[in-house]
């Protein structure tokens, strides 16, 4: 019988694993090993209300300290250094060990570094942790010109924040459109226009070559084509790398993250993985790694369910959101490989959705200020739907009504 669960990582997935285990009635020991010496906390507000100073650190915690003592979840605020799979124990950096019957790896990911000369200058910052957000918040107080490297979600959320504070903002993006990894062309176009309206200038097909600095830190960003952009703050968001070191050193299979099967089990039956750190087998057989709050929560919950005896293949519908300025983007499903997009609503009214299909199958819906479409899409993607591009393209097509009518 399961008596001892250890979790490495105190982010969304690590916290949720511990939380779900208790909610599902698991009574044994839970050790939540996390190296950040604060209560486990949520990240999304860091790039939005937190850097704006509208939210305080205390309100970011998933639960107050009392929760962990009430629920008998041991918070071990030390870094894990190694996994001894033979003896089933985690080796900590303080020399102690934590034994386990089952181990859950929720080690997350870390920001890819900016590998250009001058990237060590003060005022060149990335955003992942509370500490990063604090540095950015501080620097924003005296900055006038920000350069953002990477027009992904983090970069653009920050760009919107900086623009709203009156900074001049310039974004450097290597691709020919924004959020190119996750978004349809149609939605990228909408966001590029929005940012333009907020005076965020985006340079496409451009990359950073070097950073100039002076006594108070960064003074300019130098583009690959030589153009010099004055800047007193550079925020970069150029992707993350899954934290696989512990797993790799322990001999677990690694492939675009810690490799898990459709039940979120690694190559060791006593070890599972969840969240940003793991690549899993989706219901369609593809191996993917998702970087989202929903993925961390649902995977952690699925692992906890399996540990209390309710195993099932993991098939949660992915969803995601991003707040940029007054615009709320919500995405249900994954747009990868879409071949047809049907737009509904009005982008002039800032309320529209892109309904995305691949081989006539609904794969994702991206919605801007249309929460109803988003929620309807989540329901449709969670069941077999025969919604076709032709149906969606009919005038006055209403995704919400369609979902209700086809229940």
């Amino acid at each position: 019988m399961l008596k001892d669960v250890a979790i490495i990582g105190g982010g969304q997935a690590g916290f949720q694993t511990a939380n779900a285990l208790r909610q599902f009635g698991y009574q044994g020991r839970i050790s939540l090993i996390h190296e950040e010496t604060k209560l486990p906390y949520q990240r999304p507000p860091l790039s939005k209300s937190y850097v704006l100073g509208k939210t305080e650190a205390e309100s970011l915690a998933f639960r107050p300290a009392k929760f962990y003592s009430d629920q008998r979840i041991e918070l071990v605020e030390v870094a894990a250094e190694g996994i001894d799979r033979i003896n089933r124990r985690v080796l900590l950096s303080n020399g102690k060990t934590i034994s386990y019957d089952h181990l859950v790896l929720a080690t997350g990911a870390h920001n890819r570094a900016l590998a250009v000369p001058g990237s060590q200058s003060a005022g060149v910052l990335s955003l992942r942790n509370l500490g990063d957000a604090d540095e950015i918040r501080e620097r924003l107080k005296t900055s006038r010109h920000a350069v953002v490297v990477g027009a992904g979600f983090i970069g653009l959320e920050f760009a919107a924040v900086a623009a709203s504070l009156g900074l001049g903002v310039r974004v450097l993006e290597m691709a020919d459109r924004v959020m190119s990894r996750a978004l349809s062309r149609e939605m990228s176009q909408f966001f590029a226009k929005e940012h333009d309206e907020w005076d965020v200038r985006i340079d496409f097909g451009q990359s950073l070559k070097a950073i100039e600095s002076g006594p108070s830190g960064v003074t300019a960003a130098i583009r690959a084509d030589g153009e010099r952009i004055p800047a007193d703050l550079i925020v970069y968001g150029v992707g993350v790398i899954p934290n696989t070191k512990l797993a790799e050193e322990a001999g677990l299979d690694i492939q675009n993250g810690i490799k898990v099967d459709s039940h979120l089990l690694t190559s060791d039956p006593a070890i599972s993985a969840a969240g940003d750190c793991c690549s899993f087998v989706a219901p369609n057989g593809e191996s993917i790694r998702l970087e989202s709050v929903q993925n961390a929560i649902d995977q952690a919950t699925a692992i906890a369910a399996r540990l209390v005896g309710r195993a099932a293949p993991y098939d949660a519908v992915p969803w995601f959101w991003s707040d940029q300025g007054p615009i709320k983007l919500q995405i249900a499903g994954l747009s990868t490989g879409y071949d047809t997009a049907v737009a509904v609503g009005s982008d002039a009214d800032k309320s529209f959705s892109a309904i995305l299909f691949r081989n006539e199958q609904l794969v994702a819906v991206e919605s801007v200020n249309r929460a109803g479409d988003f929620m309807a899409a989540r329901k449709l993607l969670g069941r077999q739907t025969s919604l076709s591009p032709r149906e969606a393209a009919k005038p006055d097509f209403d995704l919400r009504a369609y979902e209700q009518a086809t229940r």
Partner: protein
Amino acid sequence: MKITVYDEVGEKVDLQDEPSKSLMQAIRDAGLNIAAQCGGEASCGTCHVYISEDWSSKVNPPSDTEEAMLDFVDERRENSRLSCQIALTDELDGLEVTLAPGSAF
């Protein structure tokens, strides 16, 4: 301020909290089982509660986004609200709410 929360099995819990949080945060911080997956950003619908009749008109009204999300929560009723969108104020001292099904994960 005092808030009374009835959970999914009808158990009553009294919270004492400061009026600086959202209702969702007060419920969450009291250790009650509320999913609130998106952490309070009106993006998931899993902080769904029913506000007691006496209090419905006293809480801040829902935005368009919240209305749209509420259309899709399990068992929506007249007095359904997303608790992350309800700001606690001194006037709400004594507030009574019930956790809706589906707001426990």
